[in-house]
Structure formats: C-alpha cells, structure tokens
C-alpha cells in the first residue's frame, strides 16, 4: 500500500509538470491554431537557462527565474515574428513542419551554447521536506508542484480578469470578429508564444532541478502531447486533469509492470499507448470541443 501511495504521490508531482508544459501548448493552439511541436524544446532550453543562471552566474533563485523569464519573452517574440508569422493561413502540415524545424534549430543552438552535455544543479533550488506517515515526498518535486500550481493559478486569473487575457480568449473564439472589435490579432499571437515560452522555461527549470538537463529532456514534450490529447486540445482545465491523470497512471503502471517486462521502459511508451487509445475512441479528448466540419 505504501508503495502504491508513493507511486501516486510522485506521479502527481510529475503530472503537475506535464500540466505546466501542456498548458503552453494549449495556449498557442487556442489562440493561433498552431500545433507547437517545439514545446518540449522550450523546456529543454529552460533547463539549460536555469543551469546558466544558477550555476554559471551564481544568481539567487528569484533573479535566475526573472532572467530566464526575460530570455523566454525575447525568445517567444523572435520565434513568433520570424517563423510563425509567415505561416498564418498555411496548411496544417506546413505549420507543424515549421515548429519541428524550429525544434531542430533550438536543439542545435542548445548543442552550440551548452555543448549538449548533461548538466545538473541538484540542491541549488530551495527544498521543502515533507513526510506523511511512511510516505516521503522528494523535496525538489514538492517545490515543483507548488511552482506549477502557482503558475497555473496566475494563468487562469490572467485569462479571466485582464484585458490581454480576455483578448486572447476572444481570439480563440473568432479571429475576424476580434479584429473588427479593434484587437490586434498579431499581438495576441505574439503574446501566446511568449506565454508558452515562459511556461515551458519555468517547467524546464523545475525538471532540471529534479533530474538534470540534457538534450533528450525535450522528449518530455511528447508526454505533454499525450496530456493535451487526453484532456482535449482546446481545454486548459482538461490539460490540468489529464496531466495529473497521466502522471499518476504512468508512474503506477511503470512501478507494477516494469519488473515483469524484460526490457522495461514502460514509462516511456505509456503516453503513446494512451495517445493511440484516445485517438481511436475519443478523438476530441475528455473535455475538448467536438469540431463540426463543413464543406
């Protein structure tokens, strides 16, 4: 039982980080209808930025976070203006290939700047130790959960109460109506990319603190896609629920089934199995809108 609860708890913590990454994806998708394959690479860059500011420059944690967010803002603006703006109105494949090309370039840049090596800053982030009965919650995961929850709440408030947040929600509904209401859609697109970059970078710093950073960290984006599909691509609430579900399911399944399988590594394919099942039986996900198509 303790084993099971332990798996549940660490799965929950993992799920919150998935949620954070998935939200960045959902925001871009909602506002600009672009599927951002590079979201995982924002996370990887975030991890490396965390390493640079925390270890190389020895900045305090708050300053590192601010600096990383500043870099994320610049990155988001540049990416949107240079690569995604020309893709407005292009077919789905072109946009997706663009984000893939972007992810490849980001990977190349990470190799260029940080050498693509394994970097770790274990023990630099603040920790909170918590023990409930026999359950021990890994300290760095807990801080990750807290930061994730804070960011998610800030985002929800942003979309609910601020002008730009409401403009983004309106753009998600209908671009043309929004334009006639005097909202600049290109600004909204830029804003959505900036937010996605910030969210990805914060997720990267958290994950980097837990398990270190290297290029394959970008694969976490793949898991975020499973989360997004399960929750429904255009639902932020769905991303939260699905993120936690997937994190827990993945951990429990791997914990019980991995010893039975010779090769192991079930945690790595689990999200993909979920993806296929969701796509066959419930393509719009748990909370997504069913798209109605017209000729």
């Amino acid at each position: 039982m303790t084993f099971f609860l332990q798996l549940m708890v660490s799965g929950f913590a993992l799920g919150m980080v998935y949620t954070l990454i998935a939200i960045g994806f959902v925001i871009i998708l909602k506002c600009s209808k672009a599927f951002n394959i590079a979201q995982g690479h924002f996370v990887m860059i975030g991890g490396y930025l965390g390493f640079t500011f925390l270890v190389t420059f020895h900045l305090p944690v708050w300053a590192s976070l601010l600096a990383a967010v500043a870099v994320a803002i610049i990155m988001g603006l540049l990416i949107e203006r240079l690569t995604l703006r020309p893709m407005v109105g292009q077919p789905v494949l072109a946009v997706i290939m663009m984000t893939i090309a972007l992810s490849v370039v980001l990977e190349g840049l990470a190799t260029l700047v940080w050498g693509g090596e394994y970097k770790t800053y274990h023990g630099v982030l603040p920790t909170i130790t918590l023990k409930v009965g026999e359950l021990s919650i890994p300290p760095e995961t807990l801080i990750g959960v807290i930061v994730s929850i804070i960011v998610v709440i800030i985002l929800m408030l942003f979309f609910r109460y601020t002008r730009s947040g409401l403009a983004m929600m309106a753009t998600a509904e209908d671009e043309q109506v929004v334009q006639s209401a005097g909202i600049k859609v290109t600004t909204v697109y830029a804003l959505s990319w900036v937010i996605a970059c910030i969210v990805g970078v914060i997720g990267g710093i958290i994950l980097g603190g837990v398990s270190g950073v290297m290029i394959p960290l970008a694969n976490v984006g793949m898991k975020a896609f499973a989360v997004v599909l399960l929750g429904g691509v255009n639902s932020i609430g769905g991303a939260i629920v699905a993120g936690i579900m997937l994190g827990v399911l993945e951990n429990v399944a791997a914990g019980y089934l991995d010893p039975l399988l010779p090769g192991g590594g079930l945690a790595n394919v689990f999200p993909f199995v979920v993806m296929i099942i969701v796509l066959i039986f419930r393509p719009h996900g748990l909370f997504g809108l069913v798209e109605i198509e017209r000729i």
Partner: protein
Amino acid sequence: MGLPSGTFNQGYAQDMAIFRTRTQWVMLFAFLILLFACPLFFGDRILTVLTIIGISIISVHGLNILTGYCNQISMGHAGFMAVGAYTSALLTAKLDFSFWAALPCAALAAGIVGIIFGLPSLRVKGFYLIMATVAAHFIIIWVILQLYGVTGGADGMAVPRPEIGGFVFKSKASYFYLVMAIACLGTFFAKNIVRTRAGRAFIAIRDNELAAEVMGVNLWTYKLQAFFIGCVYAGVAGSLLVHYVAFATTDQFPFMNSVWYLGMLIVGGMGSTMGVIFGAVSLKLLDELVTVVGPILAAAVSPQAASSLGLIMRGLVILLFLIFEPRGLAHRWQMVKSYYRLWPFSH
C-alpha cells in the same frame, strides 16, 4: 501546359504518356545509363552516399503517396521502415529465407502494420494523426526492444547480404545496382499509382475529405490503401537498409529520420514524384556537406559548433523552404522548364 512548343496531344495515349517526346525518351535513357555507370567512375565512399540516397528515395516515395497525395501526415515512417527491416532480417537470418522472398514479406508486414496504425486516420486528421503516427513509431521500436529473444533487443542482430544464384551482393557497386534498380522501379510505380483510380481518390481526399466522401470516394478503403502503399515502400526501404549495413538495430531508425523524410518532402515539393527525388538528394547532399565541413569547423572554431552544425543547417533549410518556397524544388524545376521551353518568348 508542360509540353514543348509545337507539340500537341492528339489522342488519349499521347495525353497520358509520361514521356511524351523523343527528347524526353533520350534524356531518360541518358540519365539511366549515367546512373548505372556510376560505379565505373566513383569510389566506394560516393557509392555509399548514392546507395543511401536510393534507399531514402524509396522510403520517401511511400511517404509522398501517403502525405503528399492523400494528406495523411505520417511521422512514424522510420518506425514502419523498422518493421520491414526486422521482418526481412528475421526471415533471412533466423529462418533461412532468401532475400528475394523476404523482401516482399517485409513489404507486406510493414503494410499491414501501417494499416493497423492508420486506423485512427478514419476518425482524426492533421495534428492528431501526426500524434498517432508518432505513437506508432515509439510503440514499434519499444516492441522490437522488448522481443529480446527474437530480435536481439538493443544489441541488434547480424543480417546476411542478399545473394542470387551463388552471387552475393557483397561489394558496394553490386549493392548500388540492386538499390538503384529497385529505386527506379519504385519511382515508376509511384508515378503510376497516383494516376490510377486509387491515386485520383487520394488526391480527392487531400483536397477536401468531406467533398470526396460526398462524391463517392470510400474514405475507409482509400485512406487505409494509402497507408498500406506508403508503408510497403517504407518496408522495402527498411529491408534494403539493414541488408546493406548487414546488421539490424533500432538505432538505424531514430524518430528524427521520420522527421527528415517529411523534410525531404517539403524541400522537394509535396505531391510530386520529381520532388521526392529532389528532396532526398538535396537533403542527403546537405548531410554530406556537413560531414565534410564539420571537421574543418571543429578545428577552426570548436567541436560544439561542428556537432550543432548539422542540426542547425537542416532545421534552417526546412524553415527557409517553408517560408520562401513552400511548393519545393519541384515547383522551381517546373518554372525553369516552362521558361526554357518558351524561350525567347515570355509566354
């Protein structure tokens, strides 16, 4: 459109001909003779590059039918290649099949796996289908790694070179001939498949799925057919690849290969047989450029710059093509052709 000045079609056969004029026939045979004379002029290193290009062309033809013509975007092509590769490897190494029997089996196995993973395409499209095929790739590779006793898992397995009547395709030159012959056949079939009823159905599905269905195109049949054909090509390419390397591991089919195949389609031009060849050749040549420039860059700047060069170059090429020439090199080629056909007149 597309005919030299003064040439007119006067019947169905002429209208349908791929090679319409005598000049085109002459150029075709000149090209084939030059292609098959390559081993006489080039050393093993260039032949290796050409062989890999040939295998890529076969694979990308499949992807072109699936993605370029039928708009069912597959990002698991390397996974389907792995299916063909391992089928052929197991049949020849473990069950003593000859390569010539194993190759069709590999194609069939990849096709059937393709149909299975194509099933989501009946309900979803665009990004969702991409995710389904990405999932297909990772699940296939995982299953291969799990079947340790059969496939050797991560250790891989040795695969014999193909042979025919005692002659073993051992030298680079002989394997080059094998691959190029199959690549030419593959090109021929790919060009013709899209001119059949099924091919026209694929194009209808690409242009508008709902409209195609209303017109009487059976989406179920034709989408799965497109998956089958596309993956058959992948299976053949995968089989050729492992028999060439004489060793099969899952490392030969990384996920990024699926992405590069799509990149080749983008660079070459989607929905064009010529584009497949342009795309495969140009991206592979870019790779070669990187392997040549890499060491120089490593010595002059830093080893990091050299290892990142390939990624940045490839990413940038796809990125720039998407922005400035989304229709690919094939479209440029058409423009050049119509220009010199009409020269010196402007239209």
